[in-house]
């Protein structure tokens, strides 16, 4: 499996809004913590180490 870098989310504007809404009212530390929980949860869903490694690379 390869990391999918093509558009893959329905209604991108809607998702982006939800993402920001999740951080609404949080201070920096709380936001960082939320991001960390989210990364871990998504990483587990992906599971594939090769894909995760590619994602780590592309995000650098």
């Amino acid at each position, binding site marked *: 499996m390869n990391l999918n870098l093509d558009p893959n989310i329905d209604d991108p504007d809607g998702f982006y809004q939800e993402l920001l809404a999740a951080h609404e009212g949080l201070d920096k530390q709380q936001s960082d*913590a939320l991001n960390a*929980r989210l990364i*871990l949860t998504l990483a587990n869903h992906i599971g594939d180490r090769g894909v995760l490694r590619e994602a780590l690379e592309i995000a650098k």
Partner: protein
Amino acid sequence: MVAVRYETAFKLYPYTPVPAATSGTVARHPVVIIGGGPVGLALALDLGRRGTPALVLDDHDGAGLGSKAICFAKRTLDIATRLGAGASMVDKGVIWNVGKVFHGDGKLFEFNLLPETGHRNPAFINLQQPYFEKFLVDAIRTAQGHGAPIEIRGRNQVTAVTPGKDHAILDIATPDGPYKIKADWVVACDGARSATRDMLGLSFDGRVFEENFLIADVRMKADFPTERWFWFEPPFKDSGQSALLHKQPDDIWRIDFQLGWDIDRDKELDPGRIRARVDAMLSSQTGSVPDYELAWTSIYTFQCRRMESFRHGNVFFAGDSAHQVSPFGARGANSGVQDAENLAWKLDLVLKGLAPEALLDSYASEREYGADENILNSSRATDFMTPKSEISQTFRNAVLDMAARAPFARPFVNSGRLSVPCNYDGFPGFGVDALKGPAVTRPGAPCPDAPVGQDFLLDHLTGDFTLLSIGGVAPAPVTQGEISTRVVHIADPSPDLAARYLGDADRAVYLIRPDQHVVARWAKFDAQAVKDALHASLWGAHA
């Protein structure tokens, strides 16, 4: 004079005058082991049972008192069982299965280790290190009774090691004055502060963790569950970054508090202050403080480091002298005992002229690899427990937060990964996998145990090269040079044995090293293939 650096829990090898110290003769010994800790004792016992003389020199006369190793893993118990010391360890040790992990006030999750069936020994036991050493010495006394050429000299301190071309000269101090001996081979099992390493001017590089741990061993008669409790950011007052509660034999509980780096050691060791911490911990789950006494307290700092090479000519390093890890994961003594077992059969064969000296280099390369694996695991655990940056703290706490509500996060929680032996995958001397069987028994792997009739497979792998044949007909022994394999034939394998050694196959042939690591395996017996694999194991890569 021989300085006393610590108190002993058991006097196991009291000093007796050494005749050479007065006569001035310089005796020559095949193997001299410096240090009678777990590693030196296991090595001496293994060599002696093989008939190779082993002389152990220790500057004390028994097992040191105090809080050291408590957790001994299955591989160590399997080795000790082969050496005749395993049963007393398991009888005395505490076996636990339930662990609880807390974060602050809340319990994150609970686990039950549910050990795999079909093994003689448990996944691990808790046992104070002095007992471990005592049971090894008991087994040495028994072996000596059967003629094993082992000698332990207490209060014999090695003060100089001078390597020569085909021997080394040791200077030894005793209460009656100094003497010298000559050794064909020297094995330095003299611990993390190895005097031998210093005397030879060798370095010991690695990483120091800026962390202090307070250890309190408390004696408590109260009825407290036999469980392992671990706290991240414990809620009780002044408890530090993490805390651990663990049971040992004799109503002793090991309690650890992670105190951080900038501490006042004397203040932290004040018994009143320690008791306040222990009270808070013990009452946090039960609401009341049981009766207890402080049996031993100390503060430790930890490092992860190893020598670049475990062999320097005639001098080998094994155990803590060669490598040091943080105790999370219990990889210190456990890995050191594997060093001893790796070296014992090789030294024995080389001294008997049955294998080339170059075989001894494989001790160094295999165990350096093992040490790296242990250091990697131990560093990862320490990094999880003591996050070194703001973001690592954020991720660590994210894991802990998620662990309470989502099972996926629990495997990330790392308070130490229990010591398991390494696989020598792809190392020289290990041969083909012509069976394509289960991964746990691939070439390089240590043999997992499995039931065979009324006993267990490992009982049959007694320390020689062994041809293990499962299903089919029994093969004839294979001889290479002067070494013949033992043959163990199991016509009707138990389900566990079949699962671990056959997989989908209906028969298999394994060549197994004296240290119970798989050399190669085949779907059917081919005498020439076995002969070649045996040759490669002893000479191959070094030919």
